[in-house]
């Protein structure tokens, strides 16, 4: 983890000196993680991608302020979270639903989410889709701070200290957020946890 962060810091220092290749490497490395974090908050692929792009542009614009003392991932996910929150605030002020969003839900959204569709039969695919939908709903139903803390912990493997840096609260409060998020998910996904469907798919 520290090797990775050293590497990121090195790349970021090069970006600070105007090296676009270093920036491209950082984008390639973290695009999926940023995209996933945003997509869990704003579940529309097109909008999430636009916002992810804005996150990286913001990273580039703020590169001159980057200090090696700050871990790159903490800095990156803080920017991503702030832009997400801004977008949520903007939407609450102008609650107009975009055309792209509705097309996404009814149109290609389902297709986007299928993985390895050819590997499984129609019954398994249907089951998998249902599970994915339930998990997505359950995660999406969490309060923003709990969801972000949980995803940074489970998907992006940030340390608890780094997560508390992104969320902007104490270490104990961060752990409490993750704990509450997990308890809520366990409650909502109880049948799926017990059925072992996912374990079966793993095998």
């Amino acid at each position: 983890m520290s090797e990775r962060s050293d590497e990121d810091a090195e790349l970021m220092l090069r970006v600070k000196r105007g090296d676009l290749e270093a920036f491209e490497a950082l984008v390639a490395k973290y695009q999926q993680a940023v995209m996933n974090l945003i997509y869990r908050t704003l579940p529309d692929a097109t909008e999430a991608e636009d916002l992810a792009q804005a996150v990286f542009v913001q990273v580039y614009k703020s590169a001159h302020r980057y200090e090696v003392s700050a871990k790159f991932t903490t800095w990156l996910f803080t920017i991503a979270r702030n832009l997400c929150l801004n977008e949520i605030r903007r939407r609450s002020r102008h609650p107009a639903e975009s055309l792209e969003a509705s097309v996404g839900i009814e149109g290609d959204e389902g297709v986007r989410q299928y993985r390895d569709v050819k590997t499984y039969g129609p019954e398994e695919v249907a089951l998998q889709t249902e599970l994915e939908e339930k998990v997505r709903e359950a995660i999406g139903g969490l309060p923003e701070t709990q969801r972000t803390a949980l995803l940074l912990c489970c998907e992006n493997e940030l340390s608890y200290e780094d997560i508390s840096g992104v969320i902007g609260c104490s270490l104990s409060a961060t752990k409490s957020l993750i704990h509450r998020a997990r308890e809520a998910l366990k409650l909502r996904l109880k049948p799926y946890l017990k059925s072992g469907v996912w374990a079966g798919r793993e095998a």
Partner: protein
Amino acid sequence: MKQQNDTGGAMNQELLERLWRGDLTGSERARVLSEESVRGGGDLQGQIEEEEALNRLISQNPGCPVSTNFTSRVMEAVRLEQARARREARRGEKGLWGGIGAWLRGSWVAQVLATGLVVVFGVGSMVGLRTYERRQLARSLEVVRDVAALSELELLRDFETIQQLGRVVESSSSMESDAALLAALQ
């Protein structure tokens, strides 16, 4: 800890936090379970399995795939941003004030010079104001001096008569003027 209470008290906080992150290795897991069985605690295995199942659900739930041209789109946006910043910088440098601003930002000599100019202007203004006040005072003193130099009031007693005599002399021509002179004397 709250977490310990919520999970039945069987799991300690460190173990729980490592489980959340999926950091628990197979051998560690086996060791913890054997220790727990010796102690005869609660359903630790069930709790560990539940936490692990939840980890699987979260990590295997697909996120949103990023489009293949995402990086190139970001790089394009960054290049546009660079061009915009350059344009703005150039626009800022154009014009008298922009030029002065850029010059001031660019060199410490310019900053010292500008500070010196401001100080000179300030001191000059103060000196000018003092000089103006002194001149005003001198003028006032002159007026007072003139008033002090006027004749005594007794000499001004026949002022009107003398004035009228002057008018009579200016328009003297005939009998009328003699009468007028007489009237004035009276």
